[in-house]
């Protein structure tokens, strides 16, 4: 068994979600030989490659595709790259995290390889046996992959936490090699062009990896009021989330949406304010360790999954919490 991980990098480091893909590869079988595929252009790519080479003892090889054609994570050149690397490496498995990067690229690459990929794997029971949620997590489906190599997966990073690695084992660095791009198929490359990324830079932790998430729903009523959620998040060192209704109403940008079609979170503490608990939203939070719900409506479905519920007006609760909660350490 040998696995290729399609990895994302940022500011010269591998993203945590890609390390979850490494953890998933480790769960496939003992002695799995794991290669990381990184692409991009410029010095931050080489930095990320050295980071990848020493971050996890399971990683045996880092493959680097350094070219201007892969400067941005576009699906067209990436799928061709995966095709090329698979032709040479003959991996038994190809894994990416279920991020917008993985979901965009892996199925396209699978089509080029004439394989059926498996989306959103949450548990690995064997090299060909996987569990994945369907119907927004209201059912779990166990599937056996019966096709030829490679078996291609996207994995939910919240289901594969990355074990912390001691400094001793980190020194066991993997080899770094450049991908030979002389036979790179450029037919579809250039047909799509990156224009820009509009994002909100914040100091807050990333929604996907935060230990505490504070979420607001439609009941917040306005972007102005939503600042109460942000203040509480700041006090707790938490990430901010939102329901689809809150995003659709324009209180916060889309990247904060939690749920079936938004982000899947699994923090130690999930605090929901004015969230009714639509099944699509609950799909995104059900693996949280502790769920707190504050809602005026005692019949709101969120109370059926909450560990601690408080039936009260959030506009009274939020200021009180802000006053009484201890400062984050």
């Amino acid at each position, binding site marked *: 068994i040998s696995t290729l991980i399609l990895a994302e990098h940022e500011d010269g480091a591998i993203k945590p979600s890609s390390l979850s893909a490494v953890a998933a590869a480790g769960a496939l079988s003992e002695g799995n030989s794991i290669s990381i595929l990184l692409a991009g252009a410029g010095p931050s790519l080489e930095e990320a490659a050295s980071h990848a080479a020493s971050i996890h003892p399971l990683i045996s090889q880092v493959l680097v595709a350094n070219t201007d054609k892969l400067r941005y994570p576009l699906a067209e050149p990436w799928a061709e790259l995966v095709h090329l690397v698979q032709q040479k490496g003959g991996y038994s498995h190809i894994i990416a995290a279920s991020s917008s990067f993985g*979901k965009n690229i892996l199925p396209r690459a699978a089509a080029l390889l004439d394989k059926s990929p498996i989306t959103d794997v949450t548990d690995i029971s064997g090299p060909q046996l996987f569990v994945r949620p369907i119907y927004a997590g209201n059912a779990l489906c166990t599937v056996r992959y019966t096709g030829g190599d490679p078996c291609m997966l996207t994995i939910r990073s919240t289901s594969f936490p990355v074990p912390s690695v001691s400094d001793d084992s980190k020194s066991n660095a993997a080899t770094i090699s450049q991908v030979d791009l002389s036979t790179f198929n450029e037919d579809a490359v250039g047909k799509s062009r990156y224009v820009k990324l509009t994002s909100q830079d914040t100091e807050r932790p990333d929604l996907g990896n935060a230990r505490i998430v504070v979420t607001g729903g439609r009941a917040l009523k306005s972007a102005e009021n939503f600042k109460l959620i942000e203040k509480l998040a700041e006090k707790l060192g938490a990430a901010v989330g939102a329901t689809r209704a809150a995003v659709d109403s324009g209180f916060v940008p889309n990247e904060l949406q939690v749920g079936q079609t938004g982000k899947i979170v699994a923090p130690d503490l999930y605090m929901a304010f004015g969230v009714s608990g639509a099944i699509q939203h609950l799909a995104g939070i059900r693996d949280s360790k502790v769920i707190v719900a504050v809602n005026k409506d005692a019949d709101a479905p969120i109370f059926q999954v909450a560990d601690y519920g408080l039936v009260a007006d959030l506009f009274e609760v939020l200021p009180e919490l802000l006053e009484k909660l201890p400062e984050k350490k």
Partner: protein
Amino acid sequence: MKIMVALKRVIDYAVKIRVKPDKSGVETSNVKMSMNPFCEIALEEALRIKESGLASEVIAVSMGPAQCVDTLRTGLAMGADRAIHVDTSSTLYPLSVAKLLKALVDTEKPGLLILGKQAIDDDCNQTGQMLAGLLNWPQGTFASKVVLDKEKQVATVDREVDGGLETLCLDLPAVITTDLRLNQPRYATLPNIMKAKSKVIKKVTPAELKVEIKSDMEIVEVTEPPKRKAGVIVSSVDELIDKLKNEAHVI
């Protein structure tokens, strides 16, 4: 320019699904079925593009058993010009759907394909990407805004990605998959429902399209997810803080 849209028939989004006792799947008999919400958004976008004069025809495609015709009628009532039903009782995975759609693209020659980003039953989120790969076309997935430039033959697409909104410029023909915020789909009006009855639904089979339906997958079992234990209702903020500190140890 023609636009082709794929419409999937799924259990209605408001239905609370039930897992079959024999764990073979989810109960679908006597359950309300509807058009996948993301497919509705795809069709709506195609109709708006046509109404703005940038497309000549909208073709709706659905695949599966005879009941898919109901879904296609809904699409025709919303405003699609004609429909194609790929008639099959086989289980279709996204790779087969992408191959069947590619075969239809080869004969219909649309300039744009719009699909929902995922179906709310299997939540696969694959077909559009696979179709774009098979066709060697550019792809704009998870779109929340689409602007066509007829002269330059490009589509500018805003995509909902993890870090915010990514903007791409795609050469046409292209594949676009829709996210929730692209538009608000219209309801079919009664006159349009009546009109849709006379619109053409062409039936084809996978064999006629020369696509072999194969499966690389076997469903071993479908089960209910573990239920969360019912929690407690606290009576005050002080009690909540106390529980979080001293019972759950999370703050």
